[in-house]
């Protein structure tokens, strides 16, 4: 594991570069196929509405995959992630248009731990609402 960020160079409060991700219906179809999660709430508007959702929603696991990129792009080595957990607090609603939805992800070093590891707290929002809660990763730095 060779992270490009050194433990000694970060402190509590260090901000990671924020990123914005776009999610369209096309994204969801691709993710369904790659992940094997074919739940129709992620691609079938008729079904999603019948179960009380406003529209098709993104896979929570897709949003989780995007959010950790703030950490893996920062360290360079995705294998440096030691722990990663999130709570799915609000669905990301994906309209049937070319724009789709956007998810903004910010991250900050929240704690320096043993073994050159740090805890990064992530904040993911879509349409101004937090879509992940308790989004935390522990990552090993150089």
């Amino acid at each position, binding site marked *: 594991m060779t992270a490009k960020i050194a433990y000694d160079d970060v402190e509590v409060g260090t901000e990671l570069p924020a990123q914005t991700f776009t999610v369209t219906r096309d994204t969801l179809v691709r993710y369904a196929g*790659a992940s094997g999660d074919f739940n129709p709430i992620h691609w079938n508007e008729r079904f999603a509405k019948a179960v009380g959702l406003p529209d098709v929603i993104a896979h929570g*696991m897709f949003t989780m995959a995007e959010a950790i990129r703030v950490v893996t792009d920062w360290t360079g080595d995705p294998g440096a992630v030691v722990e990663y957990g999130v709570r799915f607090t609000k669905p990301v609603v994906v309209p049937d248009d070319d724009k789709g939805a956007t998810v903004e992800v910010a991250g900050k070093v929240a704690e320096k731990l043993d073994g050159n590891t740090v805890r990064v707290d992530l904040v993911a929002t879509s349409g101004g609402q937090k879509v992940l809660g308790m989004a935390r990763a522990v990552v090993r730095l150089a």
Partner: protein
Amino acid sequence: MALDQSFVGRTYPPTAPYEVGREKIREFAEAVGDPNPAYTDPEAAKALGHPDVIAPPTFPFVITYRAAAEVVGDPQLGLDFSRVVHGDQKFAYTRPVRAGDRLAVAQTIESIKSLAGNDVLVIRGEVHDEAGEHVVTTWMKLVARAAGEA
């Protein structure tokens, strides 16, 4: 109807191995739009100290989600999957999943709680490679919404 608390601690036998291929990792990385070369270029992965391309951090869910079908579909447990939403997800890694891995998942029902009429179930998956070495532990929290609630 509340789930039976006696299912807490129930374990399921390890799944047949899931063989992780380079092209599956590439497909997954493309689906999440992540161009990190560690996922697609063996030389880039080696430069980071990995023996082959590695999978993105959330990739193990592909394997554990498949395995969890046995638990959520257990007729004795009686979970109504049409009312289930994914509440939380957590991973604790010993090492990243990589191409060539043959991974088996041993699942345990870690907890069952009833909150405001909703059933909350946590399934823990211990993922080991063919040598029996630990790769990652996953926790999937499922919330089965109370009947009558949209």
